[in-house]
C-alpha cells in the first residue's frame, strides 16, 4: 500500500467517523469536539489533493474560527445541569432510514459515471497546459491570488497557458458581503436585557 493510499484511508476513516460521531452524540459539547476532528481531517484531505491554500484556509477559518464560534454559542446558551434535550427514537429511526437511502442514492449515482468519458480528451494526464507541475505539487497560493485579482494564467480545457479572466467580481462581492454580515450579526447579538422567567415578556427588549 503506497503512502497516498494509506493516508487516504486513514483520513477518510477519521472524517467519516467524526461526522458519524457528530450525528450520534447527544451532548452538544462532544459534538463540537468530533466536528473539530472531522474538519481537521478534511483539511488534511485537501493537503492530500495538493490544494495547500484551501487546506490552510480550512484550518484557519473553519477549525480556528467557525468551530470556536460554535463553542462560544454552546457556552452562552447552556441549559441547566438537569435538562436533557433528546430526540425521540421514532424521529431518529426515520431520519436514519432516509439518510441511508440518500447515501445509497448519491454513491450509486456518482460511481456509475465514467468521469474520463465526460471530459473527453482534455484530461490532465498530459503535462502541457493545465497540469503545471507547481500547481500539481500544491504550490497554489500565487495562482489563486492572481485569479482572485482577475488574472488567470491557465485555460481549463488543457490548452497552453494564456491570459484569461479571473474571479475579481465575486471576490469584491464576497468582501462586501462579509463586512455587512458581520456588522449585522454583531448588531443582532448586542447585549439586551434577558427575559426573566418571573417578569413580563414585553418588558424585555
Amino acid at each position, binding site marked *: 500500500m503506497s503512502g497516498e*493510499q494509506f493516508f487516504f484511508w486513514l483520513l*477518510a476513516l477519521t*472524517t*467519516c467517523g467524526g*461526522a*458519524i460521531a*457528530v*450525528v450520534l452524540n447527544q451532548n*452538544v459539547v462532544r459534538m*463540537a469536539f468530533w*466536528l473539530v476532528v472531522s*474538519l481537521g481531517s*478534511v483539511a488534511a*484531505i485537501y493537503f492530500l*489533493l495538493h*490544494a495547500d*491554500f484551501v487546506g490552510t*484556509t480550512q484550518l484557519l*477559518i*473553519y477549525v480556528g*474560527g467557525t*468551530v470556536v*464560534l*460554535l463553542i462560544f454559542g*454552546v457556552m*452562552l*446558551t447552556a*441549559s441547566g445541569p438537569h*435538562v436533557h*434535550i*433528546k*430526540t425521540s427514537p421514532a*424521529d*431518529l429511526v426515520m*431520519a*436514519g432510514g432516509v*439518510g441511508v437511502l*440518500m447515501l445509497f442514492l*448519491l*454513491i450509486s449515482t*456518482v460511481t456509475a459515471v465514467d*468521469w474520463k468519458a465526460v*471530459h473527453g480528451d482534455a*484530461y*490532465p494526464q498530459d503535462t502541457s497546459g493545465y497540469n503545471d507541475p507547481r500547481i500539481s505539487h500544491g504550490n497554489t497560493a500565487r*495562482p*489563486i491570488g492572481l*485569479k482572485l485579482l482577475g488574472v488567470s494564467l491557465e485555460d*481549463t*480545457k488543457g490548452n497552453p497557458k494564456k491570459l484569461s479572466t479571473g474571479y475579481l467580481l465575486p471576490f469584491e462581492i*464576497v468582501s462586501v458581503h*462579509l463586512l455587512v454580515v*458581520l456588522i449585522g*450579526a*454583531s448588531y*443582532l*447579538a448586542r447585549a439586551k436585557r434577558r427575559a426573566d*422567567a418571573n417578569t413580563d*415578556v414585553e418588558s*424585555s427588549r
Partner: protein
Amino acid sequence: MEIGLNHYLVVGAVLFVCGIICMATKRNAIGILMGVELVLNGANINFVAFSHYTPLGLDGQIVSLFVIVLAAAEAAVALAIALNFYNNHLTIDVDRGDELHG
C-alpha cells in the same frame, strides 16, 4: 488500488448525509448549525476533488474558498439568531419555537 475521483466523492457524500441527518434530528440549535457545516464541507470536498482529477483546474479550489468564507458568515448570523432565541425563550430547544410571535 489506485485512489481515484470516486473515493473522494464517496467521502463527500457521507459527510453530506451526516449533515442532513444532523439538521433533521438535533433539537439543539447549535447542533443544527453543526449539520450545516458538515453539509458545506461535503460539497467542498467534491469541489477540490474535481479540481485535482479533472480539467476543472484552480476554479474548483477558488469556489471552495468562497464556500468557506460564506459558511463562516452564515454561521455568525445563525449564531446571533440562536442567541436571540435563547434570550427570549430561555431555552435552546428549537421545538419550543413553535409560535410565530415573540
